């Protein structure tokens, strides 16, 4: 009898484990996909308050448009419009299904409508070929990294460019400053910079810091209410590394300059010897949350942190407004001219007499 009971229990567990333990799986229909998507943002997105978004209004507008008969294309367009409202380049929607047939992932990144234009208004090759005497590459060997430094031709000015902010060695600035730190000024070019690690940003800023300042605070969303946030974590500037640079610094920015590159600017803009020239940055400071999944096979991601300045205000959705506004046109780049860089050089001459 005992053996029979044991056998029955094992058979029961074997046959129906999934339903017993997990319950029913999510239904893959347009309405459930919409509900999961909207609710997940509602309960986790970190910038509703800081940017004054009304996510309930998004539900009111788009929920009636979704029925059991909504096609994938229609649902994609609806979700795309929902996250377009957030204007946050840390938010994206992706359909990886095309990978199964060798096609690229179908991807929409919020707040990225102008990126192609902005990308075309800058050329790293033009800088290297027309403005630098020579350039030295530095990186963690990731193919996507375009990181280099050098000396501007016929000027006593150092220059460094980074299209990201992701370097595992936090002392990477020391050899760079050993090479170009003897010049009278430095131009840090953060145009087309897609961000990366705030730790890299802080390590880099430490080479320019003039002391300890409270730079910003971070809170993570920690509850279902849009006002639920953890205690503030304070981030300070501070000198770090073996090499420091306290002469004039120009930082070049554009509308792609985002995330950790903006965090670097939070530090640099608090130092008196730094001047920002170019266009307003993206205004997307938060780190992203984890990849999220929908029953229809789509993925998405969103921001979960709120970055605030010491006075409690937020630059999310605003960005760093430059001290001197100037931008290239695509025609400028085609004609071999980088007006933004040239303006930086001129600013150093006009303000400090450096050339």
């Amino acid at each position, binding site marked *: 009898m005992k*053996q029979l009971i*044991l*056998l029955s229990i*094992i*058979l029961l*567990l*074997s046959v129906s*484990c*999934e339903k*017993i*333990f*997990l*319950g029913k*799986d*999510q239904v*893959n229909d347009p309405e459930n996909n919409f509900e*999961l998507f909207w609710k997940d943002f509602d309960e*986790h997105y*970190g910038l509703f308050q800081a940017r004054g978004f009304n996510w309930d209004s998004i539900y009111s507008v788009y929920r009636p448009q979704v029925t059991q008969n909504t096609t994938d294309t229609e649902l994609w367009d609806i979700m795309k419009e929902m996250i377009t409202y957030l204007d946050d380049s840390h938010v994206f929607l992706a359909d*990886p*299904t095309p*990978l*199964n047939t060798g096609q690229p992932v179908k991807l929409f990144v919020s707040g990225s409508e102008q990126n192609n234009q902005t990308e075309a208004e800058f050329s790293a090759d033009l800088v290297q070929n027309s403005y630098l005497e020579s350039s030295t590459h530095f990186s963690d060997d990731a193919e996507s990294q375009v990181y280099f430094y050098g000396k501007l031709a016929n000027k006593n000015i150092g220059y460094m460019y980074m299209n990201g902010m992701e370097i595992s060695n936090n002392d990477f600035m020391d050899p760079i400053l050993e090479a170009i730190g003897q010049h009278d000024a430095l131009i840090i070019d953060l145009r087309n910079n897609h961000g990366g690690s*705030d*730790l890299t940003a802080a390590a880099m800023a430490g080479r320019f810091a003039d002391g300890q300042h409270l730079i910003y605070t*971070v809170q*993570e*969303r*920690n*509850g279902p209410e849009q006002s*639920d946030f*953890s205690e503030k*974590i304070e981030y300070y500037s501070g000198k770090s590394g073996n090499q420091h640079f306290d002469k004039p610094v120009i930082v070049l920015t554009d509308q792609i300059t985002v995330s950790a590159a903006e965090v670097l600017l939070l530090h640099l803009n608090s130092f008196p010897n730094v001047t920002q020239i170019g266009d307003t940055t993206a205004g997307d400071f938060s*780190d992203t*949350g*984890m*990849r*999220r*999944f*929908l*029953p*229809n*096979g789509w*993925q998405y991601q969103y921001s*979960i*942190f709120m970055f605030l300045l010491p006075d409690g205000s937020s630059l999310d959705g605003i960005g760093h407004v430059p001290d001197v506004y100037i931008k290239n046109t695509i025609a400028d780049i085609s004609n071999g001219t980088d007006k933004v860089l040239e303006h930086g050089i001129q600013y150093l001459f006009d303000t400090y007499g450096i050339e």
Partner: protein
Amino acid sequence: MNRTHLWVLILGSLLSSKTVEAQEKNELKLPKNRLQLSVGYDHAYFKDYNLSPLNYKGPGYGIDFGYQGNTRKKHLWKVDFHHSSSTLKTPASTRFDVDRDVFRFQLGYTHSVPLKNTSSHLRVGAGYRTYIDFQDFLELNAISYFGLHAFELQADYTHQISQKHQIETSIGIPFYGLLARPPYSGWDKHMIENADNLVLNFFRGSWKSLNTFQAVNWSVDYRFQFAKHWELNVAYQLHHYRTSFRDKAVIASNQLQLGINFTF
């Protein structure tokens, strides 16, 4: 659970039925020391809203090292370590596969409870068990974890089926421990800034009890003594963990293990 798994379990049960008449003649054999090494197949059912709203399941493979020590008064000490790796899959997409690693460490002491039947033995006691279940989607694009470091009630029932055949079932029910789960939004600054030491997070938790988590660890071991100091071991294990702390998570792992024991 696959068919092979089922057939072994059925065979084990039939073996014990066939020899039921001879049970009274088979006095329980408890070696002073038993070292166990086994490898196994794992099939998990998994849902963790921190990671995904979807149901996952998937196969994996594991290894298990154990030691049992029987005292003169038939009390039992045991230590066990287990690791398994698997890939969790969901019907929603072939692009949602999640790597899963499980680590278990168990310490236990169960006290002998005399029974009239000389072929069987019951022991009850307490122990400690660490259970770490870590999931990783595409190299940290999404992660989740269930870490429980808990005190538990344990019971072992051993039955000598015949001279060379023995079956043992054990149960462990954690009741109070350190529960480590991801923060509400999955990441926090501490995790991001210590991404190289994610293991620290498996021990970064709060002390919780049965109101917050429920878990059961159950096993059935069939042993066949094929030489004086050697046994063949076939085991079925069920490990079930659930919590609603921060995000609801439910994990059920079925394991079938084949191993060898050295007794001395």
